[in-house]
């Protein structure tokens, strides 16, 4: 059983100038640990005409013990993609990865469709200024749909273990047709891919690695993995496919799985050691988790109610 101590909401976008017309949302916090600070990237939203919006990347720098904020970025950390590209209408989320003295990031790019709202793919970008800005390695995605993973490849989280790269990500199995009360609803699952160079990836096409606990329409998102001792711990979020936006009993909550060989994963939500609060900012929803280590301590960042409209919070693992 994991034991987490909630430290509360640590970032609310309304308290900061994020630049552009960005106001609400700081979604899917993900970290890059620097010498004197922890840089937490997140996606905020810039509104456009006709009630549409695009997701853009910002970051906030915390002291390494999270006692205070050093700086909040109000510039575009990564510009949106060009006309007709996979990440033209948003980047959400971004997963930074240090490789030697280089800093890369895997992104989830969004582009709008006609019959369904959106399609996504995974991009790869690079930084030459300690993660202040990133630029693309190519206009297209590094990882996208395949015969058995037909839509919505994204949420990539990459780590190097035992000399090769492991990607945990999600793929869409299908879209469910719209109904009188629901727009088209996507169904997506967590999967795993492997690579020697971070660019060419192998996958078990269409194989979901995390068992459903709700039903076959369960939507699983944002896997994040941390190795502690000899065990790999995965957190993610999951929900029902429909009526999940405003109905807390069907909305996102955190799930947990573990593996000792990076191949077979045992789902064990009952061991997650963290759940929605009785009241407050995370009492209706918990989503988009990110686990990481700083100075020997393990932390969990996550979003609360309304998909992170009011920012994110932190929990610390009791290592005993």
């Amino acid at each position, binding site marked *: 059983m994991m034991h987490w101590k909630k430290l509360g909401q640590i970032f609310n976008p309304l308290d900061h100038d994020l630049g552009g017309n960005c106001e609400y949302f700081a979604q899917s916090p993900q970290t890059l640990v620097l010498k004197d600070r922890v840089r937490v990237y997140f996606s905020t939203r810039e509104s456009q005409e006709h009630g549409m919006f695009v997701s853009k990347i910002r970051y906030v720098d915390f002291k390494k013990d999270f006692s205070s904020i050093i700086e909040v970025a109000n510039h575009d950390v990564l510009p949106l993609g060009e006309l007709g590209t996979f990440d033209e209408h948003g980047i959400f989320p971004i997963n930074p990865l240090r490789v030697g003295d280089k800093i890369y990031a895997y992104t989830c790019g969004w582009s709008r469709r006609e019959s369904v709202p959106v399609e996504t793919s995974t991009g790869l970008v690079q930084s030459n200024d300690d993660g202040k800005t990133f630029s693309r390695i190519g206009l297209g995605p590094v990882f996208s749909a395949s015969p058995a993973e037909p839509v919505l490849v994204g949420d990539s989280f990459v780590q190097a273990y035992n000399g090769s790269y492991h990607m945990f990500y999600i793929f869409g199995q299908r*879209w469910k047709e719209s109904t009188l009360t629901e727009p088209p609803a996507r169904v997506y699952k967590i999967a795993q891919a492997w690579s020697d160079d971070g660019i060419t990836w192998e996958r078990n096409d269409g194989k979901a690695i995390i068992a459903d606990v709700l039903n076959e329409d369960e939507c699983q998102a944002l896997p994040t993995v941390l190795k502690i001792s000899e065990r790999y711990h995965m957190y993610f979020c999951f929900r029902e496919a429909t009526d999940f936006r405003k109905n807390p009993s069907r909305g996102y909550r955190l799930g947990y799985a573990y593996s000792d060989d990076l191949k077979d994963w045992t789902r064990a939500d009952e061991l997650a050691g963290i759940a929605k609060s009785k009241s407050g900012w995370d009492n209706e929803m918990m989503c988009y988790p990110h686990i990481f280590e700083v100075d020997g301590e393990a932390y969990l960042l996550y979003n609360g109610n309304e998909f992170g409209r009011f920012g994110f919070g932190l929990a610390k693992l009791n290592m005993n």
Partner: protein
Amino acid sequence: MANWIKKGLLFKTADHQQGDWMQEFAQAPCVVVRDDTVRVYFSTRPKPDSGLYVSYSGFADLDRADLFKVKKVSAKPILSLGKLGTFDEFGTYPVSVVKNDEGKYVCYYAGWTRCSSVPFNVAIGMGISNDDGETFTKIGDGPVLSYSLDEPFVLSGPKIRRFNNLWCLWYIAGKKWIMVNGKPEPVYKIRMATSSDGINWKKENRDLIETRVADEAQASSDVFYKDGKYHMFFCYRYGANYRGKEFGYRIGYACSDDMYNWTRMDEKVGIDVSSDGWDGEMISYPHVFELDGKIHMFYLGNQVGKEGFGLATLEEGTLV
């Protein structure tokens, strides 16, 4: 220099309409030579729905002894349109067919989806036939060849060949969308990938054919092997205002010793637009095949095959 003798418009869609799905167009012909017939797969369309087309693929069986005799036309499409939100929801065009090691027909096709900032995106799918090429079952709901770092969008026009135990796929990949009179238009170039099994592909990741006109778009990279050389007939157009004679499609030619490195020699192509008639404004989408000692070309005329496709036959001994 090749000398192509034009034989005229061979397949007029208006004479062979099927159901509501084959009303206009016979595009991108591709041949399978059978015992008594030559089967030509091509792509066709219903009447447009609120100005927008979907496209299907079908076939016509031509008399092997007299190609102008149409013996049979497919009563239904060879491929279904894709499910909600998938890459081929709005079109399966064009298609290219070859036999696999088990003697089954396999097709590669371009699947079309509709986007919001640009009109469409395209990726390449694969199907296998269990009824001798009458219909094809997709190997999955997703594409077999999709977007990547260097090929960001519009992967279309697959032409499958099998040379030296290798599956070879020539296709086009989008480079950029340009705005012409306020409308996005795609620029695409001829590319190539190879595979040992027809499913897992290694992209060459480079443009094969040099560009000659402004924002040139290249298509229909049709390769055949003859007299110790690989010959490619293809078509190309200007990036802008290409729907008329001046900047519209023409057929080009390139030659290679190894099928990877190509020399463009349009001056030897030996076919051009006619002074008037069905191919008086543009010629495009060549497909060259050998039949009973002769070399033939199917190709499209004005409005990229809106009326149907025509035939030209090579004067013996004039292949470059």
